[in-house]
């Protein structure tokens, strides 16, 4: 139980919060913390455990979000179906990227992923007949579980918590399993891993595909929760960076790290925007500057990430 201590604190607090908190703004923040944490965890599967650092994961997030919007508005299909369709499309897309960039290592792989997400942004924002172009597209609200329409935020908290727990357990599995050790070997030194018989090319593609599918699932949930899909948001580089950043700040390659990172980043961002942002604020955008500076300080002071920092404290006699 002890090794799950940090996760129990975070997920336990999230589970209890709706019993006490009735404030819609706070519950909304909680849902977003969980969702962004889950997305970071999905990124972590490839970026942290397998060392395949991508800055194009917004592509898969956007595919999942657009699946919910387009299947819902055009064919009146359930978001659960959109979830599966989005995950399949994202897997297919990731297999193509994985295959094409298989020989690319380090910065070249990162560039390939950025390029891919930018291509999808252009397609989504220009293909007016299908995606409604740059105007974006609303996701229909249809009450019920099958249509994922909940007016009540508490339901969303538990849904987000369920997905977060799933991702946490997937990561934990990766830490202790054969494939997990093999991925770690590929991350540390691909040639040496191959010399020990690890089929590194295939494993990298598997990790990226799994990560992409999970990211897409979160994209579907997010679109269904927020109710609107804007191509310039869902396919943005900002979003891709955010997935990576929360994992890095929280502790890359650790199961609880992405959630720590999300708690910090999402809270900070929401608080700063509420305090310094908004119309009528004296200095427009000052909150982003403060946000940026704080992130630099965190990375500078605890380069191993929050999870490593907390782990180090608890191990002390």
């Amino acid at each position, binding site marked *: 139980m002890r090794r799950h201590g940090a996760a129990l604190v975070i997920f336990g607090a999230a589970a209890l919060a709706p019993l006490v908190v009735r404030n819609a703004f706070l519950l909304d923040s909680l849902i977003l913390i969980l969702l962004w944490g889950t997305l970071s965890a999905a990124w972590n599967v490839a970026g942290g455990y397998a060392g395949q650092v991508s800055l194009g994961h917004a592509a898969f997030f956007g595919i999942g979000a657009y699946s919910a919007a387009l299947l819902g508005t055009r064919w009146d299909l359930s978001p659960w179906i959109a979830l599966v369709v989005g995950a399949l499309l994202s897997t297919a897309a990731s297999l193509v990227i994985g295959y094409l960039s298989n020989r690319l290592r380090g910065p070249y792989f990162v560039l390939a992923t950025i390029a891919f997400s930018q291509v999808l942004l252009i397609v989504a924002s220009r293909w007016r007949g299908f995606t409604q172009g740059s105007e974006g597209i609303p996701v229909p609200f249809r009450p019920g579980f099958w249509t994922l329409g909940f007016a009540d935020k508490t339901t969303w908290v538990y849904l987000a918590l369920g997905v977060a727990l799933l991702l946490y357990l997937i990561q934990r599995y990766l830490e202790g399993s054969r494939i997990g050790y*093999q991925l770690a070997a590929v*991350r540390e*030194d691909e*040639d*040496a*891993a*191959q*010399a020990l*018989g690890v*089929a590194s090319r295939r494993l990298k593609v598997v990790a990226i595909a799994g990560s992409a599918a999970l990211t897409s699932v979160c994209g579907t949930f997010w679109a269904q929760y927020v109710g609107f899909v804007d191509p310039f948001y869902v396919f943005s580089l900002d979003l891709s960076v955010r997935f990576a950043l929360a994992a890095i700040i929280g502790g890359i390659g650790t199961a609880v790290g992405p959630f720590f990172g999300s708690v910090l980043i999402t809270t900070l961002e929401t608080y700063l925007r509420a305090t310094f942002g908004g119309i009528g604020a004296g200095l427009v955008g000052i909150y982003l500057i403060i946000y940026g500076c704080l992130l630099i300080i965190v990375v500078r002071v605890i380069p191993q990430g929050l999870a490593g920092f907390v782990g180090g404290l608890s191990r002390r006699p």
Partner: protein
Amino acid sequence: MSLLSVAGITKRFGGVLANREVSFDVAAGELVGVIGPNGAGKSTLFEIITGFYRPDAGEVRFEGKRLTGLSPDQVSRLGVGRTFQKLRPFQGLTVLENVMVGALQKCHDVGRARAEAREILERVGLADKADAYARTLSTGQRKRLELARALATRPRLLLLDEVTGGVDQRSIPGLIGLVQEVHRAGSTLLVIEHNMRVITAVAQRIVALHLGEVIADGPTEAVTRDRRVIEAYLGQAYT
């Protein structure tokens, strides 16, 4: 039938001929040394056998199966292990986890792989370092780790690239003993080595390379007295 058969291997890098029609066989149970001056093509030959480089001509067979054209991980899974001259431990993993990655090739159960890895660490004398991160090891310890990791894949042929290179003098006898112990335990070994004291202590047979070509191949005592080997590499007869 020989365990490993290297036939007519030629490899060019631009205008440089790194290997030129290199041919030799290794029988099961042998311990063969590969010697030659810097740039003789020893390491290139290792990279070709293990699938990291593709030769321009010739082929390598192991237990009758063609290795040429296979990827390094396929070669490893067929039973050919190797160490790297430039050591490549998984820095961010512990010593035990490093060896487990090797053991997990054949063993799909993590618990069993951990037990196997512990046994191997015991054998190579790194048991007390099991939980240390690989990046904290000394060069001599890293050499042992490199060997342990390769052994964990249970190779039928093991290629060692400069096991004693860059190691302080006091650690060398221990490493020699280790290589001999591995050989006695039933492994077939192909060993690149610069240190003649080491090679004459362990190898029964030597293949000497010079400018990419095999210039001598025979029992250790004969090769160390061979005129061409002396001219090209030793400078004087090594006795």
